[in-house]
């Protein structure tokens, strides 16, 4: 793998200079030239209008895998500027894998005004934190995050890179993996190290959860995986833990970023809990009969400190925004407790929630397929059962 400038093609337009996040391009005799800061991130190749900058891809078997060492977790920062729970989960899982490999865990944090998060990552078990702080990184966008992360990976050569399988993680990991031609496994639910080969065994559901597949990346490095939120267990937070913090200086020109975010519209329905990060989800289906009855679902969710989910039928009917949809065409969730109210349990819905730790189903129809995956099934009218559950919980809590 490498990058070079095809000098005759370079017209000296200098468009590559603002595109480079690492300040690695100088003009020498009106032609672009790389200096020692170059990380081969490839940002300049995309900015070049004449194709004078060429990124060379490695073919199979051409990567010297022995050069790669260490396990990385790419951090995700939530809307409130806090470390996303999935990042803590991946640091925890990363520690277990790193112990099997006899290596350490680094966390990459990209954002703006995030210096305090290095301590948080350390408290969850990071040995090292790469801190990339820049105003253009304040909210996730594909291009600058890809350029920065690719540069770091090319420079430091980790053997494993884990990213949360969130909308951000799936967008970023795919782009980076394509740029560096690394193998990437999506949406893993189980990771382990093969002792004899030191390879990362990546297990994931496919075919709507009907099949599990184990995947290896033998010839390329790093071995990249996105991992579902809520599947891995974080370590107990310990604020006495310390990490080596490496500040990564970057120069990113807002004008060279292709996308602009015009607006972010928060979904105000239901509780504040993010569905994919929730420990408890209470979901409503067609059995609610009317959009206003989601109030009952919200009441139980709020009481239990959970999030509100919904079946596809209710979203299609416009009863609740699409952000709440659980299932193969909505979100895949893995909470400790999933309470399905008035949801029959179509295969597509089950694909999105059947791996929940505990499933409670409330349905009038004793033959509803949701009962096949439920740990506790209540056959009855949800308008009687759910209020009774609310009452029973309040009583136990001593109200």
């Amino acid at each position, binding site marked *: 793998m490498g990058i070079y400038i095809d000098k005759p093609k370079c017209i000296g337009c200098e468009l590559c200079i603002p595109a480079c996040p690492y300040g690695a391009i100088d003009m020498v005799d009106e032609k672009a030239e790389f200096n020692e800061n170059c990380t081969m991130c490839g940002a300049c190749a*995309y900015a070049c209008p004449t194709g004078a900058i060429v990124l060379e891809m490695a073919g199979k078997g051409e990567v010297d895998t022995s050069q790669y060492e260490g396990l990385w977790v790419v951090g995700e920062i939530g809307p409130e500027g806090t470390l996303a729970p999935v990042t803590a989960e991946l640091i925890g899982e990363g520690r277990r894998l790193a112990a099997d490999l006899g290596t350490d865990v680094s966390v990459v944090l990209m954002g703006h005004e995030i210096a305090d998060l290095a301590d948080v990552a350390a408290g969850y078990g990071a040995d090292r934190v790469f801190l990339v702080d820049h105003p253009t990184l304040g909210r996730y966008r594909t291009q600058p995050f890809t350029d920065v992360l690719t540069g770091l990976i090319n420079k430091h050569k980790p053997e494993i890179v884990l990213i949360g399988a969130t909308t951000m993680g799936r967008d970023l990991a795919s782009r980076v993996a394509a740029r560096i031609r690394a193998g990437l496994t999506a949406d893993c639910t189980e990771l382990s190290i093969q002792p004899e080969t030191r390879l990362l065994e990546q297990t994931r559901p496919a075919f709507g959860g009907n099949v599990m597949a184990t995947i290896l990346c033998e010839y390329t490095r790093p071995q990249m995986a996105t991992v579902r939120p809520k599947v891995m267990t974080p370590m107990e937070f310990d604020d006495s833990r310390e990490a080596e913090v490496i500040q990564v200086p970057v120069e990113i020109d807002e004008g060279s970023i292709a996308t602009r975010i015009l607006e972010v519209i928060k979904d105000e329905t239901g509780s504040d809990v993010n569905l994919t990060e929730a420990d408890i989800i209470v979901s409503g289906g067609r059995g609610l009969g009317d959009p206003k009855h989601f109030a009952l679902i919200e009441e139980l969710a709020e009481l239990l400190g959970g999030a509100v989910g919904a079946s596809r039928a209710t979203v299609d009917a416009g009863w609740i925004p699409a*952000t709440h949809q659980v299932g193969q065409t909505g979100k895949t969730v893995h909470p400790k407790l999933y309470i399905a109210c008035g949801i029959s349990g179509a295969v597509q819905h089950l694909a999105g929630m059947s791996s929940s730790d505990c499933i409670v189903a409330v349905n009038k129809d004793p033959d509803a397929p949701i009962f096949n995956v439920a740990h506790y099934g209540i056959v009855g009218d949800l308008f009687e059962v759910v209020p009774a559950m609310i009452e*029973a919980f309040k009583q136990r809590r001593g109200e």
Partner: protein
Amino acid sequence: MNIIVCIKQVPDTSEVQIDPETNTIVREGVPAIINPFDENAIEAAVQLVEEHGGTVTVISMGPPQAEDALREALAMGADEAILISDRCFAASDTLATSYVLSSAIRQIGDYDLILTGKQAFDGDTAQVPPGIAEHLGIPQVTFAIGLEVDGKALTVRRLLEDEFEVTQVEMPAVVSCVKQMNEPRRPGIKAKLAAKKKNVQVWDQTCMDVDACLCGLDGSPTRVVRTFAPTRNTEGTRFEGEPKETATAVIEALIDDKII
């Protein structure tokens, strides 16, 4: 505007099972469908062209029978269809697939927008759309629930975890579409018959500039080494009777299990 829609023919996943004896996927007798998310991409493309003029070209990489999926797309209103099919593309993972698709798109050349479904129903990876964008060196906007075109500017509403993000980008770009974006049209008999008579081009590796080392098994860094059936909970406890009693019993059980 000229739009290219990338589609995939997938097995209807609700009928896919693992053979417990051999631990391999049983595909025989499983109906093949257009990946449901791709139908939204086709619908979005046809709507945009109805509004702004232009053509919709639908492409698919797959075995010869994937032609059926392309014909369905033609019936939905696509103007042209290309099947990208060659033995050397077989067993491609997401990286190799996005490389082959991007090579075909380069060969088509004249495009403003590339639409895809957010992910395929069989693999569920969502890795191909960003891969295509990377190979073409153009921006990607994933998980789109709404699209507006104004000249060269594309405004996309994205569906994220618990918010919507409105992003603007200059075309050309790759946009992946979620299910809630629109209601795909169901073509009538007449449209289906007309689509049967249309030409579906078939492109093999000689029709485009591809490096065979980056296709198929050779171009795929990931390898599936094992498939198996997931463990499912089948031993549930069922409660019937007075709502007050059943509800209390379950709440008690959840508290005893320290779940709540």
